[in-house]
């Protein structure tokens, strides 16, 4: 082997060793799996067969006799109705609220927007936003109806693009998120932090255009939902 080639091979081997020393080994997979499995939304469920009602898996209970059926069936129905009622009272904004209590988002006067659009079966709502000399902060939620928690319930948003006063579209500097499966639906909440606008003069309001896309497989989909709204603006520190 030529000396240079041998040197390259030695250097590459040394790099492998050094990165291994610097970064270490992966932890045992068992500990990772324990954490991951606790965060997965669903126990294993059978696929919904043809002709089956989407309600059927929820109502499936071990039933032995007709007499027990009436007691257990009533209990199951009662629990189901309770869950459905509870689901109706769940609001995705409940997930959003804690994200807005972080120091970076606190202490601002948000404008309530409440614009909703549906994209790929997901209802995306721009809930509230604020714009000042530090940031433009936008809180959005996303919901997808899902009778039973399954991988297909998942929602993945690409970093939404924001255009301020017709300027250049920008991605958020920071994107905080949280998600949960509630009875009947998967919900996600996002707080997006954008750089403040660089504007001539001192406008008292800003017109904003937000474009949201879902992540399909590993790349954003072509389809998007757009939102246009106006925010009061304070440029002073």
């Amino acid at each position, binding site marked *: 082997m030529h*000396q*240079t080639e*041998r*040197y*390259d091979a*030695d*250097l*590459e*081997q*040394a*790099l*492998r*060793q*050094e*990165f*291994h*020393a*610097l*970064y*270490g080994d*992966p*932890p045992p*997979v068992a500990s*990772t*799996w324990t*954490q*991951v*499995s606790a*965060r*997965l*939304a*669903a*126990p*294993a*469920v*059978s*696929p919904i067969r043809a002709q089956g009602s989407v309600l059927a898996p929820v109502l499936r209970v071990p039933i032995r006799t007709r007499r027990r059926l009436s007691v257990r069936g009533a209990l199951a129905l009662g629990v189901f109705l309770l869950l459905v009622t509870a689901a109706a009272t769940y609001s995705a904004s409940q997930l959003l609220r804690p994200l807005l209590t972080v120091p970076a988002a606190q202490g601002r006067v948000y404008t309530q927007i409440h614009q909703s659009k549906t994209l790929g079966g997901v209802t995306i709502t721009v809930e509230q936003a604020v714009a000042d000399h530090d940031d433009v902060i936008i809180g959005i939620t996303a919901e997808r109806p899902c009778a039973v928690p*399954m*991988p*297909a*319930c*998942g*929602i*993945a948003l690409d*970093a939404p693009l924001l255009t301020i006063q017709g300027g250049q579209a920008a991605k*958020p*500097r*920071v*994107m*905080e*998120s949280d998600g949960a499966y509630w009875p009947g639906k998967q919900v996600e909440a996002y707080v997006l932090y954008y750089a403040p606008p660089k504007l001539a003069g001192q406008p008292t309001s800003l017109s904003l255009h937000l474009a949201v896309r879902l*992540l*399909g*497989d*590993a*790349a954003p989909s072509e389809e998007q939902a757009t939102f246009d709204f106006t925010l009061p603006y304070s440029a002073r520190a």
Partner: protein
Amino acid sequence: MEENNAIRRAQMGDQRAFQQIVETYHPLVWRTARALVGDATATEEVVQEAWVDVWRGLARFQLDRPFRPWLLAVVANRSRKYGQRRTIAAEPLNEAALDEQPYNDDGLASLLRLEGRRGLVLALRSLPAEQSRVLALRYFADLDLAEIADVTGAPLGTVKSRIHRALNALRERLSCGSPAEAASDASSLKARAE
């Protein structure tokens, strides 16, 4: 085939099948996240979130496509989201660890190995972040160049040139200008592991 069966079952909600996938790809996912995130304590969080993303997105995965690139893209997306949420502080160089002798203790050879290691660590630290990241993805996560291009979002040509420039910079910094000395330095680094 067996992997496709596991994926298919996981798509239907079978967590045991998903566990098989996690166990198979855990080292790859962890190493890739570690190389991208650069923060030891955050890597496990990113890895867990990435697996949850995989679980949620698995229904959209098409079985006639290779799984590994899709998985790496999910990991890259999650790592990117983490990077957007945090300012990644550069890990301090652990001078004390470099002063230890983790290798065998045979006097001069060990000292040469230690000095070589210190030189390589310092040389790595001096590289631009993008170059050190592609090196970590190549030599720690063992990704090929196309995969590095996918997870970093850079064109393949850019990845190649970053690796080329990074290796050139390391050679230059490690050597004292002499190819023979440079070869000796690199060989001494390799020898420490044997």
